[in-house]
């Protein structure tokens, strides 16, 4: 069965399908909570859903389900809590690792947490929290948050994180020490457009079979790194615009990536209002528009975690909009169908075979 989890500003919806053509939708789960972070651990005997929710009244938490959302479990203790001088506002990212019990969470305010019990209890990664740059990290419109967490698939000591604004940071020692990793990424809104840190990175992605190659959507600018983030070069040529939020890897083809361009910072719509996913077959050297089944008059946007792929063959690609529509492709983006509409703003989608 195929599972598509849809996080919105007012709850979680779960779509299931046997053939990725006909979908059944359930929800809202956790109604009236923002769902910015979802992970689906399909490696377990019983697939496990991990969901970060945040209620404007009652605060943030992490809930889990091992029966595909029929029931939910939440510990009495706060799964993620700052030890002293801050309070958790939102969970932006839940990242699985090769070890099923080790899960990372990226949060607002900008911090990284690590769980060694499958997401039930997290501990602050002190090395990043105490980084001397932290007091200079800024808040993008969405807040100051670690929104991207990329554990290295081969080396548990290596992680890459990204934030708006602050940029990309890497650790090679399991989180004890971190270095900014933004060489070549432009921050056009700063007096020095190429600072050590302070970039407004929107999303970073990579394929697990090629962990040294990273793809990045910036606040204007689309980049690739072939040296684990040491340096970045533009791959924006061929796209209609270099603004956007999403960046997604194909699950099986390391050089295939997906992007959803928006016209500009000051014009946050698809160019000409034409809904289009762009795919590069060659790691960003060229791009093609994928529009078969997608509408015109699409005066909305796709947020940083609102596009994903599944793990099937051929690969499925999915995205949701701020206007509450969810589209899916069962043929790697060649054609699209609407899976859901009239939902609240979609801020996160995740898909898996379960």
């Amino acid at each position, binding site marked *: 069965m195929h599972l598509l989890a849809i996080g919105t500003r007012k709850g979680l919806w779960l779509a299931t399908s046997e053939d990725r053509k006909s979908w059944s939708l359930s929800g809202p789960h956790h109604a009236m909570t923002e769902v910015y972070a979802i992970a689906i651990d399909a490696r377990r005997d019983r697939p496990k859903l991990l969901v970060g929710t945040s209620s*404007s*009244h*009652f*605060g943030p*938490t992490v809930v889990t389900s091992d029966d595909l959302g029929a029931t939910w479990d939440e510990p009495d203790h706060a799964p993620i*809590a700052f030890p002293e001088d801050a*309070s958790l506002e939102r969970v932006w990212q839940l990242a699985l690792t090769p070890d099923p019990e080790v899960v990372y969470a990226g949060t607002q305010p900008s911090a990284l947490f690590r769980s060694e019990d499958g997401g039930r209890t997290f501990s602050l990664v002190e090395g990043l929290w105490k980084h001397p740059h932290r007091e200079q990290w800024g808040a993008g419109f969405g807040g100051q948050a670690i929104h991207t967490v990329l554990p290295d698939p081969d080396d548990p000591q290596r992680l890459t994180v990204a934030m708006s604004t602050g940029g990309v940071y890497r650790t090679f020692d399991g989180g004890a020490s971190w270095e900014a990793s933004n060489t070549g990424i432009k921050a056009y809104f700063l007096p020095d457009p190429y600072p050590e840190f302070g970039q407004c990175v929107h999303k970073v992605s990579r394929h697990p079979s090629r962990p040294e190659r990273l793809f990045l959507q910036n606040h204007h600018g689309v980049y690739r790194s072939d040296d684990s983030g040491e340096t970045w070069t533009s791959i924006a040529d061929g796209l209609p615009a270099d603004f956007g939020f999403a960046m997604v890897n194909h699950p099986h083809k390391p050089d295939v990536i997906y992007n959803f361009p928006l016209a500009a910072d000051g014009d946050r719509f698809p160019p000409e209002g034409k809904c289009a996913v762009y795919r590069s077959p060659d790691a960003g050297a060229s791009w093609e528009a994928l529009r078969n089944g997608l509408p015109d008059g699409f005066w909305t946007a796709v947020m940083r975690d609102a596009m994903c792929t599944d793990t099937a063959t051929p690969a499925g690609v999915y995205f949701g909009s701020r206007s509450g529509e969810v589209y899916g492709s069962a043929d790697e983006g060649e054609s699209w169908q609407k899976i859901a509409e009239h939902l609240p703003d979609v801020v996160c989608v995740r898909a898996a075979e379960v």
Partner: protein
Amino acid sequence: MRVLVLIPGPLRQTTGNQAKLEIDLPESATLGALLDHLATRYPLLDRRLRDERADLRRYVNFYVDGEECRRLSGSDTELTPNTEVQILPSVAGG
């Protein structure tokens, strides 16, 4: 002394569906002390009412005998015998 705590519907799953809690506290206990006491019995309720710094959540109101605690002394508001503390989510969101 005994005080009465009224739990709003959305939070009753954290109190075993109890809408009213009668709590015994030392004389002159504060609202904060009441919440500390509740935290030991109903930790999930406490997480909904306060963050990890024990700050009251911004959009949850605590009426102490009809007066919202932020117009009194917040968590330091002193309670008296038979005080009624009504917890109500504020009007917020869209």
